[in-house]
């Protein structure tokens, strides 16, 4: 009874000619947690873009008269071991984290989706080979593979992003393949094939748009994982190199001054937490908003 009541309400508020995109948006903004996630993501992007305008100091400017000063009116979040402003470094650190999240997931999507489409659509030995390689990559724990890759490529932010991107690729291969197997037998794909469309056109024009929602949800959750991974690699010294600011490397330094400058450790951690939380909230919200079962 309760279920039918709810569906009547939804039907009454939903306009008849609503596009799928608008429907998803309406369902997304109905969830408070998803909206919170979206607001934090947008805020972080704005902070990262406007960092030079927002930061009160140059993030790499050393000031030996202000070494390890507690939060004050001059330095709201205190200063670090070289007298650099922690607030400015946290603000600029958003760039490395968001860049790592977005770039590495873009790498994973651009390699993983075509391979997944190929495996799912072609089937046979191609699928068997791709699936076994995917299994093998997924068998190596995410961070350990990323560390090994970053180690062999050499420590830098670019290499960390490549390492995380490659490590996240099998997630998208497996997801795309699974989705293609479901969609492949649908009438509209059969119809597209019947009128003589080639496999490439069917894969990219007919299958891809229909599996995009699932990919979008996974991409959002993987950005969260990639941000943690970048922070972890930078914490270990395999990501962004000093003196360029990154939340992970700030925590690495902060650990040595925990007794007399704990503020150095608090803010970069909160920044990572907020960034990861926001993409997790957004991903969970997108999953519910795009779930066809709940339409």
């Amino acid at each position, binding site marked *: 009874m309760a279920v039918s009541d709810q569906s009547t309400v939804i039907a009454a508020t939903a306009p008849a000619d609503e596009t799928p995109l608008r429907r998803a948006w309406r369902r997304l903004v109905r969830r408070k947690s998803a909206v919170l996630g979206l607001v934090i993501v947008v805020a972080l992007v704005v902070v990262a873009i406007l960092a030079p305008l927002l930061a009160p100091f140059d993030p790499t400017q050393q000031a030996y008269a202000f070494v390890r000063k507690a939060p004050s009116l001059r330095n709201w979040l205190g200063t670090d071991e070289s007298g650099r402003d922690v607030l400015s470094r946290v603000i600029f650190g958003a760039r490395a984290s968001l860049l790592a999240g977005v770039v590495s997931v873009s790498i994973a999507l651009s390699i993983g989706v075509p391979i997944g489409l190929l495996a799912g659509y072609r089937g046979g030995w191609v699928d068997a080979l791709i699936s076994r390689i995917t299994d093998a990559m997924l068998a190596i724990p995410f961070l350990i593979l990323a560390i090994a890759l970053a180690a062999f490529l050499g420590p830098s932010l670019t290499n960390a992003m490549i390492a995380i991107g490659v490590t996240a690729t099998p997630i998208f291969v497996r997801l795309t393949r699974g989705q293609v197997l479901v969609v492949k037998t649908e009438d509209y794909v059969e119809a597209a094939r019947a009128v003589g469309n080639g496999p490439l056109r069917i894969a990219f024009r007919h299958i891809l748009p229909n599996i995009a929602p699932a990919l979008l949800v996974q991409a959002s959750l993987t950005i969260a994982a990639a941000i943690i991974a970048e922070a972890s690699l930078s914490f270990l010294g395999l990501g962004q190199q000093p003196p360029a600011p990154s939340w992970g490397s700030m925590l690495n330094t902060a650990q040595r001054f925990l007794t007399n400058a*704990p503020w150095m450790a608090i803010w970069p951690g909160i920044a*990572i937490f907020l960034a990861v939380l926001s993409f997790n909230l957004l991903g969970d919200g997108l999953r519910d908003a795009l779930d066809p079962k709940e339409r």
Partner: protein
Amino acid sequence: MLMFLGKRLLQLLPTLFFVSVIIFGLQQLLPGDPAQAMAGEEQNPEVLAEIRKQYRLDQPFYVQYVYWVGGVLTGNLGESMRLKEPVLTLIAQKFPVTLQLALMAIVISLGVGVSAGIISAVRKNTKLDYVVNVLALTGISTPNFWLGIMMIFFFSVYLGWLPASGYVSPFEDFWLSIKTTIMPAFVLGNSFAAVLMRHTRSAMLSAMTSDYVRTARAKGLAERVVVLKHAMRNALTPVITLGALELGTLLSGAVLTEQVFSIPGFGKLIVDSVFNRDYAVVQGVTLVTATTYILLNLAADIAYVLVNPRLRD
């Protein structure tokens, strides 16, 4: 059951083969001449030639791979260039430390995660459910190395209750061992507990609406018995399987946790090797981790079939 086991073991072979190819292939990513990287400061061409010959770097890729796999299969993972010890010996030394940490983390996360999941499912859509869900999401989103640093600050620096770093084996001094590992185990178990809580909640929610729970209620059993005996026992099966899939995360987490707490385990071994360009150790540790993970998954699959009689044939 034997058929199932045989089939699953056969499926493992190609996965293990590709794991070995990937791990061996990593070495090919080394920028420049690997012999040069191994030699470090040494520039003498004779020494470089000697290294090339010793590590068969003068041979084609596939020949090197065959020799490497041959070694692995006979228990020879190569030698650490830094510590001048066989990689397998190093792994055997460090593995028990990480194992202790991981087991303690599993106990903590099972206790916290499963009970929180049950409570949140039983009290669905109440404030308590909401709080538990927020805590779980917080747990998943908190980087564990930061949690570790904050715990060191609070419990070691501020309260002075627990040692900030170091490790003592339980066979040397049991209580000191617990004191040195309780914080890292909690940090390691944190996100695992959050994941277990989510799995338990959804498994309990579906179990609570099943026919056998309705029957148990109709028989007039107390709610506590219905929840703990009927619903929980059935809900835990998928939780354990899904939990086993997350064990890889635990191994990844150990890398950072051991780094933060200076614990001489598996994770610290891989990080130290990375920085000392001790590639044989990096490859060996990665291979052993992946194999452990694959075997744990196999064990979870077998356990799943054993407790699910319908799947046995």
